[in-house]
Every structure is written in C-alpha cells, then in structure tokens.
C-alpha cells in the first residue's frame, strides 16, 4: 500500500530547502523499494519547523521537522514511513500547542490538503459555501456577509458586506470582483500562504462575491514577487474551470463567473485599491482621488468590489456555517478571526489564526516565544511599513482595529514584526521616509516631496545638525503628510516615524551614533 508523505510546496518551506527534501525522500523511497506518494501541501504556518514533513499513518498524521535533505536517510532508518521515532519527531501536528490553540476558520485546510486537488478540497468542507450561495438571492448573500461583521482584512477594516451592497445596487453593463493580492507589507504573508496552500478557498470566495453582486468577471492582482503563488493560483483556476466551479455555469447554475490572474510589476503603491485599478487597466499605478468610489466607478469605470485575499477567503466559511457562527468570535467591532503573522526577529515565527482580542504581549512573548536572538524585545511594528512601532509598555493592547487606533497604531494586514534591543529606532524612522520616497506614486505633494524631505531631515538629526529644531520639523512634516496625502502611503508613513519618536525618544536624543557626530 502506498504511504502518503506531505512535503510543503509553500514558498517559505521552499526557501528552507523543501524541494531538496522532497527529492531526497523520493530517491530514498525508490532505493528502499517503498511505495510512497509525495503531496506538496501548503504550510501549517510554523516556519521554525519548516520544512515540516508529515506522514499519513494508520494512527493519523505524524510530523517531523525541521527536516533537511541530509536527515532523510536517518528518517528512513528510523522507520518514519510508519511514524517511527526520530530526533526530529514532533508527533501529531494538530497537537502541537501553536496549532492546537488556534481557531482556524479561513486557514482550516491550509497545510492539510493537496492545494491542487479539488476532491481533497471538497472532502474538507470545500464548496459548501458556494453551493449554498448559488441557491440564494444576491441580496441574501450580501446580508449574510454584512451580519457576519467581516471587515476588510487588507488593512482599512471597511465592512465587506456594505461594500458588496454598494456594488449590488450600482447599475452597470459589467461589474467586477478584484482581489487585491498585492501583499507588499513587510511582515505579512497570509495572502501568499492561502494562495499557495488552499487556492480554491479564494476562488470560492470570489465566486460567492460575484453571485452576491452580479459581477461575472474576477481579477486577482498578484504581485510579481510571489512566483510560486502565481503558478499555483493559475493551476487552481484551470482546474476550477475544468470542473465547472468557474465558467459560464457556476456549479451547474444559470450564473457565470470567471477569474484571471494579473501579475503586478513591483510597485508597492499598487496595494492601494485605486492605484491597483489603474495598474490593472494598464496605466501607471497612480492613486485616484475618491470619490468616485471603486464600488461605483472602479475597473474601467464600472462597479467593482476590491477586496483583500483574506477577506474573500473568509467568505466561504461564513456562507457555510452562517453569519452568527463567524460573528461569535472576536471582540467589540472586530468580529471573527484574524490570521496574525508573527515575523522578524522572533523565535516561533509563523501564521496564527485566532479570534480578535489577544494582547500584543501574548502574541509576541507567549506565542512567538520572544526574539530569535534571545535578546530582549525592543519594538514591535504592527501593520507593515506604514504601521506604528510599539514598545513593551503597550504590550497590553488587545489585537483589535479600534484598540490599536486608540494607541495611534493600526493592525493593518495583521503583520507583527519583532525587533530586539539592537534595533536603532532613528534608523527605522529614516527607513519609513526612505521607503515612502521610493514607492510614492507621485500624485500628491505631501507624499512625493514630504517623504524625501523627511529622510533628509532625519539625516540632519543623525549628523547632530540643529537637532531639536529638526525634530520639530519632522513632527510638523508628519502632520502635513498625515492630513494632506491622498492615500495611506503618504498618510500613514508618519505612523512608524512618530511612534519611533514618541516611544523611543532616547534613540533620537542620546543615540551613541549621534554623540559621535557632535
């Protein structure tokens, strides 16, 4: 009988040698005369254990990790094909505390199924949401999503159901569902993981969005930095079309929906929805003024839903299990679950899906296990390059849209990047301006000029030139950018700068580098 072995094909696992491990297992199996099937699953999201190999045994799946190609001979000698003990044994993956304590709704299948097997997808509750949706009136689908309390997971946190209702009510010869898969924020990888590990859930979510708004065409705007996600997503769309999930008749209904992947070209600002739409139209990725809202005049001037990958991938479970089921998780106005991505200098980096409400301290210290270097945590940047740096003093902040906003921060796409005590916050503040200058689309003055002047002014502070005056200038400039920029790039770049200045004032005034300069 053939033994099924899972070796992740997730690009995080590939970056740590998963292809070499898969090859070594294949070769060793051949030389041992063992009959094995190697499935390239997604990642379970525990990157310190990747590549994590799982073997399907009679007693369930048994995990080993982190495995290198060099470990493969000893795994075979230890009888890992029947779950034998080895130094790298992790036991049943579902029992590992990092996984066991999660609430996986959106990522329920990620790392478990074969990403390109629609049969596997259906065997694990896939397509149940879409089957319900094809039998529902569009307005009822929208109502269900509204009732679930789902808010845009891309960062802005706008209620998904309200956006859909606007598009449903808008008149137009053609409407579109555009999936924003331009996941450019450092510290985030949830979109990549779901597209590589469970692409059908995104396809299903987009198809439901299409039925809910009478849109028949969907685009996934996927960044070019994710070649593995592009390949897997395209393959999954091909399969979905072949099996009648997509096409002129969605699951045999009289409604059609199809999806096309469009590849970005390395511009961070295209993660902003109006810039993304311009890029999709084949223009420079320049931000558009709002109004008009994309829901009224989006792609090619037609009514368009623009949703993040995770927002769309959360829809199938809401349709399947009901709005109440989803809404019962979470706190305050942040309902449901959020896939927190723990990244940077952290011992247990990975993806942790849980209900809103954990404190930042619990995420970093308990789940993340502190820093990878073993040094104390100095700062945590939440929400990507435009998110604030939080000090330990704010570790009691619950992970919730409003709670973070209250502390002058944002949860954004839920990336949490940990820095140890060696981080220089003056340098990080400079980088925030520098990055904004590199990636600014150039449309509005506060962002285009402000970012450049900001970096120059921080340079002066670094050189000890009129420090107090220049610190004041930075603050003033941040205010102008925050209030005067067209989009979140210029509008939010002040968050990392001001939070660094506020919470780590010492780095700006008593930095050893500064004293040396004076």
């Amino acid at each position, binding site marked *: 009988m053939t033994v099924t072995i899972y070796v992740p094909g997730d*690009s*995080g696992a*590939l*970056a*740590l040698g998963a292809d070499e491990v898969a090859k070594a297992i294949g070769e060793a199996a051949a030389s041992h005369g063992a009959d094995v099937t190697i499935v390239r699953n997604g990642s379970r999201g525990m*990157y*310190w254990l*990747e590549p994590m190999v799982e073997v399907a045994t009679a007693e369930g799946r048994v995990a080993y990790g982190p495995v290198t190609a060099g470990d493969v001979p000893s795994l075979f000698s230890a009888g890992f094909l029947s779950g034998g003990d080895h130094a790298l044994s992790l036991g049943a993956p579902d029992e590992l505390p990092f996984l066991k304590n999660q609430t996986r709704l959106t990522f329920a299948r990620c790392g478990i199924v074969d990403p390109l097997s629609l049969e596997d997808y259906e065997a694990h509750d896939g397509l149940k949401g879409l089957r319900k949706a094809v039998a529902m009136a569009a307005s009822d689908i929208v109502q269900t999503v509204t009732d679930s309390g789902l808010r845009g997971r891309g960062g802005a946190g706008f209620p998904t159901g309200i956006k859909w209702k606007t598009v449903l009510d808008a008149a137009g010869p053609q409407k579109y569902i555009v999936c924003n898969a331009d*996941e*450019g*924020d*450092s*510290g*985030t*990888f949830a*979109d*990549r993981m779901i597209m590589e590990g469970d692409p059908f859930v995104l396809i299903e979510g987009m198809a439901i969005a299409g039925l809910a708004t009478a849109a028949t065409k969907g685009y996934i705007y996927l960044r*070019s*930095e*994710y*070649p*593995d996600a592009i390949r897997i997503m395209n393959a999954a769309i091909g399969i979905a079309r072949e099996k009648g999930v997509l096409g002129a008749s969605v699951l045999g209904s009289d409604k059609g929906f199809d999806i*096309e992947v*469009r*590849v*970005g*070209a*390395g*511009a*961070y600002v295209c993660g902003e929805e109006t810039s993304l739409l311009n*890029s999709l*139209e*084949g*223009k*420079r*990725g*320049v931000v558009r003024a709002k109004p008009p809202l994309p829901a009224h005049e989006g*792609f*090619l001037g037609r009514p368009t839903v623009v949703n993040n990958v995770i927002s769309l991938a959360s829809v199938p479970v809401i349709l399947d299990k009901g709005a109440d089921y989803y809404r019962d998780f979470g706190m305050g106005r942040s309902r449901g679950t959020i896939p927190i*991505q*723990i*990244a*940077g*200098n952290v011992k247990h*980096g*990975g993806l942790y899906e849980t209900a809103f409400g954990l404190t930042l301290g619990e995420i970093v210290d308990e789940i993340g296990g502190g820093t990878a270097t073993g040094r104390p945590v100095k700062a945590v*940047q939440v929400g*990507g*390059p435009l998110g604030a740096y939080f000090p330990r003093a704010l570790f009691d902040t619950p992970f919730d849209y409003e709670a973070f906003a209250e502390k002058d921060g944002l949860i954004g796409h839920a*990336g949490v*990047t*940990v*820095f*140890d005590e060696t*981080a220089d916050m003056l340098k*990080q503040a400079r*980088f925030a301006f520098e*990055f904004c200058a590199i*990636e600014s*689309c150039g449309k509005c003055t506060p962002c285009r000029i402000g970012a450049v002047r900001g970096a120059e002014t921080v340079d002066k502070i670094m050189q000890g030139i009129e420090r107090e005056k220049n610190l004041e200038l930075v603050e003033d400039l941040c205010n102008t950018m925050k209030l005067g920029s067209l989009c979140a790039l210029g509008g939010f770049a002040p968050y990392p700068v001001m939070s660094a200045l506020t919470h780590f004032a010492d780095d700006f005034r008593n930095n050893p580098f500064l004293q040396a300069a004076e």
Partner: protein
Amino acid sequence: MALDLSPDFSDDRIEAIVDEFSNLEGPLLPILHAVQEELGCVPREALPVIAGKLNLSRAEVHGVMSFYHDFREQPAGRHSVKICRAEACQSMGGDRIAEHAKGRFKVDFGETAPDGSVTLEAVYCLGLCACAPAAMVDGKVVGRIDEARIDAIAAEVRL
C-alpha cells in the same frame, strides 16, 4: 566601457506579442511582462511599436514602463540576486547581509557586474518574513540567508 547588451528583435515579433494579449481588458502590463520575458528587457525601440498597436502615445507607454520597478530597458546579468531590504529582514540583520553582498558581488543595488555575470537588486518583501533575511536567486526563494550563503552564490554566479 559600457557593454551594449541590447537584444536583437523585430517589430513583427513585438506586434505578435501585442496581438496575443490585445483581447484582454487592460493589456499593457501583460504585454510588457511578455516582452521582457522574451527579450530580457523592454528595449526603448519596442515602445513605439506597442504604442502604435494599442493606439496609445509613445509617452503613455514609456510612462507605464518606467513607473514599475520590474521593467528594465537593458537586460539583466546572467544571474539575478534580489535581496529583501524591508523591515522584517532588517530585524534579522538584513542590512549586514546587503552590505556583504555588495562587497562580494562588487556592485551596488540596481547594478549589473561589468562581466555581465550578475545583477544585484533590492526587493521590498518576498513574503518570507518568518524566515528572514530572505533573498531570491534566479527566481528561487532563499530563506535565513547568511554571509556564507552569499559567498556560495557568488562562487556559483562567477563560474
């Protein structure tokens, strides 16, 4: 001496690529990607051909091409090394790795080595933030990259 690496191509070939995508809604990015895939860059001489076929001005096509970091006017080196310079990688010593790479390849970011062996580029996030610092070498992802790995890559690309 600057090496002229401009690829040879015919207008017919560019027109054929445009034709392949012209039925798409908003075809310009897919066209530019396809041209670069085939020629290794988007040569200046290709822009008027694309513009003519799409009924755009040459300035519009140039504007789009030059907006995006991915598109290049000159072909890259035989090997491509992209190193992530974003925050999660910074937190794990990414700046140190970047400096080491510059010294090892003897080029700055955005430059191609004079012998055409390698192009070093900065990239802002590869989504490998839980196994930082990260890089992409000839399209393949590499996590937890260190000085030794850079040295090994340098030895390979200089062969």
